[in-house]
Structure formats: structure tokens, C-alpha cells
């Protein structure tokens, strides 16, 4: 199957209300991200892993699937989580590691998502392990005759891992309903794409496994959304897995512990800032008449207030009791 490129501003099947909602998700992701970073620099949050620059792709692919599908986000996917109903409060509870944290009760670092209720599968730090899990999940669904899709997100660096290749191999041999969502933001910490693969696009890897591979402009929400919908349809009708590559840029360093000045120029970063997906989406909603400038201002203020409240809530919330750390090693 040849790889295809989805062109920007593809026809959207989403109505204005839904578009506004998606824009709000992106704004929320950006605002949460900004505040987390500030909290870290203020010494109130030990570790932050930002999504800045990836909002369109994340909200896009999360929106392109159904609640009955299965989601295996990677650590940068705050945009995915917020689109699935994760709240700003939950984001900050997790950031500080409070008991009410739905992903792990404060046991995991931030960015290690898991939420059974919303079909978000628990993730870990050794990257790429989740792609094999997606394969197994898809297998089980298909065995029961369900039409669920399992979508695992990963960075382009993870496409170097052995588990990635084993997963693509399995999924294509058995034609499983899996979406491999490669959020290609250009860098695996300090390692640029050229040091992670010899091909131009990560989607080309799919060719080696006889499966579909699609490269998409990751700063275009609609392109990402549509590509996801199509890939999911392919999977549901039994035509197998798709490798979706969203190409974009990681505007911030890898994490609050990284200093990107050591491996890339400010010029490069500034050039990509001009292609900020939030700007792009803002332009679209204004041009398409989905919102007015006042609406936009009000929306931003509302989002800001929501985030401020969330921070206050999370800071006041209790930590888990020490005795709790001995529970759930095995079934109790």
C-alpha cells in the first residue's frame, strides 16, 4: 500500500459547535501546558513534559475515534486526554502527584496516562511498549467481533525501538485494527529525525510491513482529524492497520529538565513558532465565522480561569497516605 499525503484544509465533516469544542481543547491544552511550565520554574512541580506545538495533531486524532475505541497515548498527549474528557483539575492533580489523580493515585510521574473508564490504557516510561499492547487489545476486540480500534501514539524516536517493529509486523500479518500514531515533532530529546531513521517520513516504515502509511501536516487539525477517521474506517472494515505520521514541531525542550539550546538554534524554533497550530486554528475559526474575536477573547479568559481554579484545587488536595503504597501489588 502506498503512503499518501493528506492535503491541508481538507473538507471537514465537523459542524461549527464541534469545531469550537476542538479549538477549546487545543486552547486548554496550551494553557495547561504554559501553566505547568511556570509552576515548574517556580519550584512547585518537579517535572513537566510539554505538548506545545502538537495540539492540533493530538486533539485531531483523539477526536477522530470513538469512545468505545482504545487509546494508548504517550507522555506528551495532554491534548489527547483533554479531548477524551480529562479535566484541567485532573491534569494538575497528576502533575503534583495527589491522591485524587485518576491515572495512578499519585504513583506515576506526570504524563503517564491511564483511565479505564475512558478506555485510556495505563502507560509507563520505557517507551514504545504500548504499541505491542495496542496489538493485543485489537486482537481481543476482533476476536469478540467488536469493531473497536486500538490507537497507540508514539514519538518518531520510538520508531527505532524493536517493539515498534514487532508490533507493526504482528498487526499487518493478522490485519488488526490498530492505528500507530507517530507524533513526529522533529526531535527525540536532542536527537533529530535523521538520527532516528534513514527515510524521509516515518510513514515509509509501513511499506516494509505491507501496511498503509500516511504522512500528515501535524499543524493542521482538520488534516489530522480526517486522516484518523479514514484510518479507523480502514481498520474497522478489516483492511488492517495504518501508520499515521503527524509532522510538526516540538516548540519547547523535551521536558523541564532539558535545555534545547544545546542542540538546536533559536532561528529554527522561531521559524516554527510562526506555524503554531493554535494560531492556525484561530485563523480558521475566525475566517470560517465559527467565532468572533470577542468570542475568542472570552473563550481564552474562560480557559485561563478554569486552569487557575484547577491549580488551586490540586494544590489544596491531599497526598495519598503512606500506607497506601503497599497496596495493589497483587489482587487484594
Amino acid at each position: 500500500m502506498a503512503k499518501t499525503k493528506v492535503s491541508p484544509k481538507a473538507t471537514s465533516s465537523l459542524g461549527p459547535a464541534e469545531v469550537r469544542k476542538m479549538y477549546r481543547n487545543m486552547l486548554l491544552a496550551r494553557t495547561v501546558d504554559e501553566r505547568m511550565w511556570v509552576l515548574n520554574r517556580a519550584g512547585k512541580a518537579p517535572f513537566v513534559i510539554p505538548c506545545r506545538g502538537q495540539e492540533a495533531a493530538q486533539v485531531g486524532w483523539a477526536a477522530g475515534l470513538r469512545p468505545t475505541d482504545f487509546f494508548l497515548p504517550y507522555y506528551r498527549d495532554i491534548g489527547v486526554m483533554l479531548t477524551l474528557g480529562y479535566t484541567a483539575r485532573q491534569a494538575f492533580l497528576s502533575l503534583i502527584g495527589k491522591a485524587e489523580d485518576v491515572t495512578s493515585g499519585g504513583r506515576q510521574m506526570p504524563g503517564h496516562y491511564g483511565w479505564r473508564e475512558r478506555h485510556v490504557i495505563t502507560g509507563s516510561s520505557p517507551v514504545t511498549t504500548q504499541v505491542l499492547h495496542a496489538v493485543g487489545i485489537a486482537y481481543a476486540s476482533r476476536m469478540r467481533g467488536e469493531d473497536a480500534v486500538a490507537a497507540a501514539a508514539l514519538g518518531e524516536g520510538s520508531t527505532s525501538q524493536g517493539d515498534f517493529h514487532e508490533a507493526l509486523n504482528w498487526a499487518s500479518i493478522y490485519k488488526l485494527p490498530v492505528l500507530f500514531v507517530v507524533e513526529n515533532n522533529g526531535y527525540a530529546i536532542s536527537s533529530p529525525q535523521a538520527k532516528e531513521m534513514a527515510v524521509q517520513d516515518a510513514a515509509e516504515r509501513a511499506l516494509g510491513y505491507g501496511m498503509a502509511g500516511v504522512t500528515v501536516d501535524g499543524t493542521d487539525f482538520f488534516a489530522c482529524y480526517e486522516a484518523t477517521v479514514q484510518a479507523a474506517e480502514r481498520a474497522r472494515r478489516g483492511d488492517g492497520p495504518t501508520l499515521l505520521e503527524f509532522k510538526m514541531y516540538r516548540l519547547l525542550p523535551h521536558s523541564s529538565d532539558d535545555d534545547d539550546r544545546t542542540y538546536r538554534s533559536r532561528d529554527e524554533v522561531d521559524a516554527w513558532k510562526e506555524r503554531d497550530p493554535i494560531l492556525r486554528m484561530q485563523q480558521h475559526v475566525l475566517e470560517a465565522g465559527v467565532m468572533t474575536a470577542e468570542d475568542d477573547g472570552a473563550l481564552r479568559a474562560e480557559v485561563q480561569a478554569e486552569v487557575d481554579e484547577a491549580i488551586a484545587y490540586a494544590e489544596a488536595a491531599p497526598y495519598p497516605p503512606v500506607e497506601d503504597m503497599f497496596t495493589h501489588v497483587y489482587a487484594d
Partner: protein
Amino acid sequence: MAVKNLIDGIREAMSEEMARDERVVLLGEDVGKRGGVFRASEGLVDAYGEQRVIDAPLGESGIVGVAIGMALNGLVPIAEIQFADFIHPAFNQIVSEAAKIRYRSDNDFHVPMVIRAPFGGGVHGGLYHSQSVEAFFMHVPGLKVVIPSTPADAKGLLKSAIRDEDPVVFFEHKRSYRLVRGEIPDGDVTVPIGKARLVREGKDLSIFAYGLMAFYAEQAAQTLAQEGISAEVIDLRTLLPLDREAILQSVARTHRALIVHEANHTMGAGAEVAATIAEGALYELDAPIRRLTGPDIPAMPFNTPQEEHFMPNPEKIAQAARELCAL
């Protein structure tokens, strides 16, 4: 009751559980059409179909990772690793994922799966078809590690492992497969995980062993009995969680401990058993705790004399017991 060998016990457990629970699936290399390179799954693909008995592509990380995904979405997978020596590519999935999923999700998810592998030497398997790797997994809370030594225990413990809500690493001694024969009770009989088995009561020393070594220890005890040494034999059966109570109670009866395992000496299961005894039964000990084990070399050589020298056997066990009792 019928007399069968250990691998019959394995096969029957898998077959009966697959009949009983449609969620149970088996995946691994050559498990389907070939019936498993040791014939452990012979007949299963015919009985339960290719969807439930899967000939996996070659790759241990993939086998275990996919199985974890299956377990997360309502299936009960049995992932077979063809030889325990090859389990290491799957180590990340087993230790980082399977073992920690329940804990890291604060009980939101769990992984009811079994990872099975033949282990151990004495079959001219050389360096990479003879290893004992249980020690690596004993160190991982969140896993269970089970090693049967009799056909009845193989069946009963595997049934329990399949029904267990947590990941169980299940090692089967490949030499035991056909060497060890015994009665397997009819019907749906399970053996509890986490409980050792008192093979034989004694008063002069306790011999703790598992797998093929438990079989050999029993033979050694018979020899020793004729010499007037009364050896108690405990088959540990589950290494994680270890039946510490059974170990301590035994030492309280006999006051001497001999631990036997095929795996390398340093940091083998024996070290944990020895520490347990030293911590919990020091004032019962009438002699130093002794471990009779494989030597600290990377693996068991292929040539016959060196392989025999590596492996403990009933006479070496008996001799160690004699020496311990003479102290």
C-alpha cells in the same frame, strides 16, 4: 488416577482451561500446528482453533507485549517462550509492564496472564538451552514465579496460574517433562500458588528444592534413609511468593537446612531461602545453612562430562546431606 508424565499435566491444564473459559488463548512460536517443540500444546489448535492457538511471529518481546494487550482487553493469554534462555528480549515487557500495570494504575488495570517456558539442563542443551532464570523474576514484586516438580502439580499449578488475576511466570524443567511420571488426579483439581509441598517428613535435616531438583532430592532422601539419616524434603513449588512459613517450620523440626537448585550459586533462589532461615530461624540452626547449586559460570557446557559436573544429582545431594549432618 492415571500415571502420566509432567508434560501431560501441562497439556491437560491448558486444554481443560481453554475448554472451561473461552477467554483463554495460547500464543507462542510453533505452538499451533507443530503442537509446541516439546509437544506441550499438541492437539490444542485442532480443538480450539487458530484464533485461540496462535503461531506467533518470532520475537519474545512481541509475544509477551501482545499478550499483555490481550489481557488488558478481556482475554486470558498464555504466552509461551520456547526456551527460558530466550526470555530476555521479553524482560522489559514482563518487568516494566506486566508486573507493574496493576500497581501503576492504582488497581485500574490488571494483567491476568501466564508466561510459560521450559528451563533447566541435563539434555545436552549447552549454554543457551539449559539456563535457569527464575532468580531474575523472583526479584520483581507484581509477578508470581511457579515451578512444578510433579505431573499433578504441573497440572494443578498451571490451572491456578491461568486463573490467577496477576501475571505468573511458570517454568517447567524440560528434563522433567518426560522423566518424571506420577499420578494426576481426575477432574478439575487446582494446586494453590504460594504453598510449598512437604514431600517427605524427616528429623535430621531439611532439603529445600524445586523442579527437577525436588525429584532428585526425594531420591536422595530414600538413599539417606537407608544410612540412618532422616531427611525432610520440601518442594518449594512457588518461588514468588515464597512459602516462608513452611521453610521456617521445617527448620524448626530438623535444625539443619540444605537448599538445592540448578541455577547459579550467587543470588539464586537459595540465597533468599537462606536469608529467610537466618532471619527467622537462627536459634533453630544446629549447622550452617548449606546451598548445593550449579556453579558460578555463565551457563552449562554442552559436553557430557562438564554438563554432569554442573548439574546436582541425587548422589551429590545425599553427600551434601551427609556432610551437613556430620558437622
